[in-house]
Structures are given as structure tokens and as C-alpha cells.
């Protein structure tokens, strides 16, 4: 994937990945940090393919699914190291040769009461269920794409989605 293609791919998916991460970590700054890491790692992978003249499509059949898989892993890593502080932008700059400038991108995201309740409920149900609900109903991923991210069969994804909705309903009712 060259710069132009990556740029297009980035524009198409940055909002989705950010939303997915934000709903799981409940912090704008952490969501930004983790989303940055996800795209940075993705670009590293693509750049290495270009450098080695290896056909990228032979390595990653579905880049979108691959991106969400990376985002999911990043969140899992984040929760594993929750006793540690999340990566700051300064740290990120050290790791990836970032131009460390302090941009003004803090933004308050406002949600109504009902949506706040759903957001909280998503954080209380199983992480896998929350992931599936977000991918399916928010990021509009197909069952096939979700199955590729989770490396499960499409039939299993349907069952998991059903169970996830049941779990969310139960959480909202309680």
C-alpha cells in the first residue's frame, strides 16, 4: 500500500477506529493515543510490504478487518497494562519518530442520557460482546468482516451477535 492508498484508507477508517476505541476505553485522550498506535503499526506493516516488494494483498486479504483486529489487540494490551499509565504523546513520539508538537485536539464528546446508559452498559458486558455490537451496528462491518477479525466462522459470529444483544438488553434492564 503506497502513501496515496494509505491516505484514502486512513480517511475512510479513522472515525470508525476512534469510535470503537473510545467506546471501550471511555477517555478521549486514551482513545486518541491508542488509535494513533493502531494506524502507526498498520502503516509500518504496509511500508514493510512495499519495501520488500511483496504483494500486500497476498499478506492481508482484508485490510479493514486487519485494522480492527489490531485495534482490538491494542485495547486488550491497554487493559493488561492498566496499572501502568497509558502512553502519552511524548512517549509515542519517542517510539515512532513522531513530530512532537502539542496540537489542540482535545474535544468534549457530549451524549444524551440514554446513550450514556448504553455506553456504560457496553463497558459492563463481555468485551467480546461489546466489540461485536460496535462493529456490527456502529461501524457497519459485515458478519464476514467480523469473522475475519475474530478468526471465527460466520455462523459463530451470528450466534455471538445474538448473545451479545441479549447480554446488552439484560444489562440495560438491570
Amino acid at each position, binding site marked *: 500500500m503506497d*502513501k496515496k492508498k*494509505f*491516505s484514502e484508507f*486512513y*480517511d475512510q477508517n*479513522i*472515525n470508525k477506529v*476512534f*469510535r470503537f476505541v*473510545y*467506546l471501550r476505553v471511555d477517555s478521549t485522550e486514551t*482513545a*486518541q493515543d491508542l*488509535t*494513533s498506535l493502531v*494506524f*502507526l503499526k498498520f*502503516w*509500518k506493516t504496509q*511500508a*514493510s510490504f*512495499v*519495501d*520488500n516488494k511483496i504483494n500486500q494483498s497476498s499478506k492481508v486479504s482484508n485490510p479493514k478487518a486487519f485494522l480492527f483486529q489490531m485495534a482490538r489487540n491494542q485495547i486488550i494490551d491497554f487493559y493488561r497494562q492498566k496499572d501502568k499509565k497509558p502512553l502519552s504523546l511524548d512517549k509515542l513520539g519517542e517510539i*515512532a*519518530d*513522531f*513530530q512532537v*508538537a502539542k*496540537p*489542540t*485536539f*482535545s*474535544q468534549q*464528546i457530549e*451524549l444524551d442520557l*440514554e*446513550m450514556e446508559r*448504553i*455506553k456504560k452498559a457496553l463497558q459492563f458486558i463481555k468485551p467480546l460482546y461489546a466489540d461485536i*455490537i*460496535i462493529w456490527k*451496528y*456502529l461501524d457497519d462491518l459485515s458478519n464476514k468482516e467480523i469473522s475475519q477479525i475474530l478468526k471465527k466462522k460466520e455462523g459463530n459470529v451470528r450466534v455471538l451477535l445474538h448473545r451479545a*444483544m441479549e447480554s*446488552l*438488553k439484560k444489562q*440495560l*434492564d438491570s
Partner: protein
Amino acid sequence: MQEKDIIKKISEFKKIQPNHDWVIWLKANILEIKPQNILNEKPKIRLASFSFINKYQKAFIPAFLSLFFIFSFAFAQTTLPGNALYPIKTLTQDAKIYLASENTKPVVRLEVAKSRMEDLSKVQNHEQEVSAIVKIITKDLGLVPQEIKKINKKQVALDVSKDVQERSKDLQVMTEKLVLKENDKEELSKTVENTQSQVLALIIETTEEINQCPSFLSKSLVELSEYFTNTETAMIELSNSEIIQAKALLKEASIVLKAGDCLAAMEKIESINQLLSILSLDVQVETSTPENLDEESSSLPLQEELEENDY
């Protein structure tokens, strides 16, 4: 809250969007990073198109070798003397002879010799190789009568000899047609002739051996004839009618034995023995030679005596 409402509410999360400045800033920073800075070590270069060879080499090499040998052997069967693969063909033919059973070996050897002669008829030049093949054919043909002799069962040996004789009929014609050096041709022709005459001799010999009756039959006949020569002794033990009957049987036995019908002769002698209340003949496997049989038959006084007595 219904599932529909939940889904509807979830879709409203789409309004969650990252800060636009941050999005632009992040993209710019990521794209500024050159791949050379990202890669700490270059992956090893491998020949992707042949990588399967490494993976399956354990199975691939024996399979390849097997196929190579199969194709070489198959191709070698169409070669002629002078070709690099012809020794493989001769090797295969020798293996065929070696693996043949004792009863079929002479025929297989003859057929191989014929096949080699056919190969020679298609070759021009390559004198050295041709001479070598002629020697092999000569040796093979010389072994055919010896191998027939090794067959234990006389009837099988006779059948094989006849088969060989039939199959070797065109050998002389084939030899005549071959374009060979004078010496080679003469040697081959001589061997063919020798083999054919030896096989013919074997056929005659084996036929005689098969038709020959066991020696104990002639001995019994001699003993019985001597017994009836002394009529007085016979008169004491037998009645007149029994003596007449026995003598008649003795005469018939002598005639059928000379005619070579051993079974009929054995039946007649058995009948006489029953009349004399002598135990049945002991079966002896030993066979007499034609010379012995002739001597024994000639010593029989029976026929002349029977004629003289004029019973």
C-alpha cells in the same frame, strides 16, 4: 428497551468523531515516517517461487527419483544396440529370465534371444556392440537345451521342448537376414542349428522315456513264463483250464508289453497272479533303460514256447 431501539441508539454513536485537527495531524506524522526508518532489519530474501521444494523435499526427492527410473526403464525398452540406454534393456531382459520359473525359463530365454536378434536386424554400424550382443545370444541359445534337461517332470519337459522347437523354427531365417560380420553370422547360425538339433534329440529321448514300461513288469513276465515252462509243476497246483487261461493271459501280456501298453500288461499279469494266488505286484518306481528292456524282452522264451506247446 426493545432491540430495535437499542440498535437505533447505538447507531447514534456515529456522531462521536475525533477532533479534525488531530486527524490531520496524525496522518501527516505517520506519512512522514520513511519505511527505512521503520525497518530495523531487512527480511531475508528467499526464492518464493521454489519455496515449496524446501517444504516437501523429503517426499519430493524419492518421488522424483522413482519417476526418473520408471521413465528411464520405459524408454530403454525402445532402444537398440549402440544406444546409451540399451544396457538397461538387456538388464531388464536378464531379470525377466532370472525371475522365470524353471519350467518356463527355456521358452523365456529363447524369446529374449529372438528379441535381441530382432534388435540386431534394425541396427547398422555399431559393430562392436553388435558383436557383443551376438555373443550374448549365442550363450543364451546354448543354455536353452540345458535348462530343458533341468526340468524334473518328463511330460512338462516334453511340452517345453516341443514349444521351444516350434518357436525356434524361424531362428534360422532370422539369422540369414541379419547383416553381420562373417564370423559372427557363422557362429550364430551354428548355434541355432545346434540348439534345434539338441532340442529335437531331447524330444525323442523324453518321448521314449515316457512310453517306456517299468522294469518290474518284464521281470514278472519272465518269472511267470519260467513257471509255466515246467508244466508238471503247474499241473500239480492248477487245473488244466486254469493253466490254459493263465497261458492265454501270459501271451496277451507279452504282446501288449512289447506294444508299449504298460497298463494293459500290468492288468494281465495281475490276473495271472490272482490265478496263482500270488500277492499283487509291488510297485517299483525305477524304470529300465530301453536297452535293458530290449534285453529282457529278448530273453523271454514265452512266445516261442507257447507256439511250440500248441495248447
